[in-house]
């Protein structure tokens, strides 16, 4: 007994020096790691820039989106007459088109991801936490939906409801939540078996509180990573829908629409393809760098 006292006193004294420091949470640690990742931080900065330009870019030009000009058809990028990125084959200004396209593409990417996130997290967390037969049934349903080809699904929607931009949101969001649901369910299953959940239940914490305080914060890490990777995927999906003529409709434009039209005049006016293609590629890279950075920062194996 005396020995124990002496030992613990010595230990207390030892810990004393360091003890007054504030603790650092895992989130703070992750943020530090993320900040020290140059590629990811670069991605954030460039993305912010693109987002900013998609808002103010079109206003910087003297031309409007609807301005067709017979005097300036397919002119190459030039500093004269303010067509900084040239014009397309109907005489519309490419600068304005590109940033308007960015607006639509980013909106689609983010909105569809939010839809996928909401459905996926709710569905996956329920399946994972309830478990048993419910889980089995819910996940088989996801498997069935997985088997439906995306394109087929969208063509049906478009033929039934006609083309409009909200339909594109819904169509992409409704397909992409499947993977999200699987990720969330898997995470929930593994978190559910953690002893701290049992400890909370054993000390009388209610189920709802357990989910809110213990399950969701520990599931959210991989979900954030997946979200950053889902945004570019959805932008890409929208562009190939547009390329097939199923995406957004003129005069509204997106990078996918621009690329598809640019591809038609590749020989005569290559900038019509190159400019939106570069923008799209840069955005993809940014999101992927950020996603990688987040994964490294949140990876529990690094701790």
């Amino acid at each position, binding site marked *: *007994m005396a020995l*124990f006292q002496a*030992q*613990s006193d010595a*230990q*207390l004294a030892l*810990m*004393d020096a360091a*003890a*007054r*420091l*504030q*603790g*650092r*949470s*895992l*989130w703070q640690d992750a943020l530090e790691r993320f900040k020290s990742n140059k590629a990811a931080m670069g991605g954030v900065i460039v993305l912010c820039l693109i987002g900013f330009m998609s808002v103010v870019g079109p206003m910087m030009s003297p031309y409007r989106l609807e301005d067709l000009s017979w005097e300036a058809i397919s002119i190459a990028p030039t500093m004269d007459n303010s067509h900084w990125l040239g014009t397309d084959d109907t005489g519309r200004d490419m600068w304005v088109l590109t940033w308007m396209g960015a607006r639509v593409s980013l909106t689609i990417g983010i909105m569809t991801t939010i839809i996928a996130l909401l459905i996926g997290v709710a569905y996956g967390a329920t399946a994972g936490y309830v478990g048993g037969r419910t889980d089995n049934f819910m996940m088989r349903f996801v498997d069935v939906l997985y088997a439906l080809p995306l394109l087929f699904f969208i063509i049906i929607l478009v033929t039934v409801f006609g083309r409009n931009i909200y339909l594109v949101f819904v169509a992409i969001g409704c397909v992409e939540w499947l993977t999200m649901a699987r990720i969330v369910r898997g995470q929930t299953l593994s978190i559910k078996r*953690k*002893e*701290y959940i*049992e*400890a*909370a*239940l*054993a*000390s*009388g*914490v*209610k189920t709802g*509180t357990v989910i809110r*305080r*213990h399950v969701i*914060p*520990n599931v959210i890490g991989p979900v954030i990573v997946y979200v950053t990777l889902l945004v570019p995927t959805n932008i890409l999906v929208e562009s190939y829908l547009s390329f097939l003529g199923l995406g957004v409709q003129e005069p509204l434009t997106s990078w996918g629409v621009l690329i598809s039209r640019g591809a038609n005049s590749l020989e005569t006016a290559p900038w019509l393809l190159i400019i939106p293609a570069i923008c799209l590629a840069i955005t993809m890279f940014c999101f992927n760098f950020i996603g990688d950075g987040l994964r490294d920062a949140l990876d529990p194996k690094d*701790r």
Partner: protein
Amino acid sequence: MKTVLKVENLKVHFPIKAGGFLNSKIIPLRAVDGVSFEVGAGECLGVVGESGCGKSTLGRAVLQLIKPTDGKVLWLGENLCDLPREQMRQKRSNLQLVFQDPLSSLNPRLTVAEIIREPLYATDPTIGREDADQRIDEIMKAVGLLPEMRNRYPHEFSGGQCQRIAIARAMVLKPKLIICDEPVSSLDVSIQAQIINLLRRLQKEYGLSLIFISHDLSVVRHLCHRVMVLYLGRMMELADRDSLFAKPLHPYTQALISAVPIPDPAKERAKGTLILSGDLPSPLNPPSGCVFRTRCLKATPKCIKEVPTVEVLENGHQIACHHWLK
């Protein structure tokens, strides 16, 4: 000594799907099969056995974290198995649990103070912030943690300190019974001693009852007043620590005790071990009669046919064996 917990004929069977795809059937896995015991106020009961013998399941079934299939768990005379969920939830402040792996039993995203505060709020949502903080400080001191460390996170502590946090979380509600599920087996030996001493001190100071689940006989011998030996979900022997270690009557207990090394090499050589041969049989398909018969040196045809009943000797020593007199 006043009895606080009385467990009668407790059974926990898990339904397991066995067989092929077409002719699958549900067979019960008998994790705990008809165990009865009592725990007095301020008493420490050791539960020992090999891994997979149902020790942990027993602990969780007592706390109703796993619903027992059959039997009674009487807490101060009230059967916990019959209580509806919400009423059981309110009873939980009396019975707490400490886990084997301290790190995985603490949510990595909460600070120490938040972890310890959680049970306080769960049982009394109206408790004031200051009251709660005061109790957290008190209990942190009592388990040998500096209250200044309250805003740190579990990953900033060593395994031993994490176990102290887990004990603080269990103790903050001033429970009357704590079930410790192998609380020291994942810690270094030197740290083990500290945690054992801490538990012993808390037990004396607060008049706690403990159920100490372990596979380590020397730890149990150090801490517990009485010891129960489990094998394949069934009780083999239950006795006072001293009489159990001095004169184990059950062949299984004898084998377990003889396998504990003695620090003196001369004695160790002279002792001669009863080796337990073979593996633990599957609880899905336990041997008929006495479950220990496949590994027992004294087994006779009677052991195959008849399940031994629990005999109670006059000093309270309980034993389930046909041939313990031999």
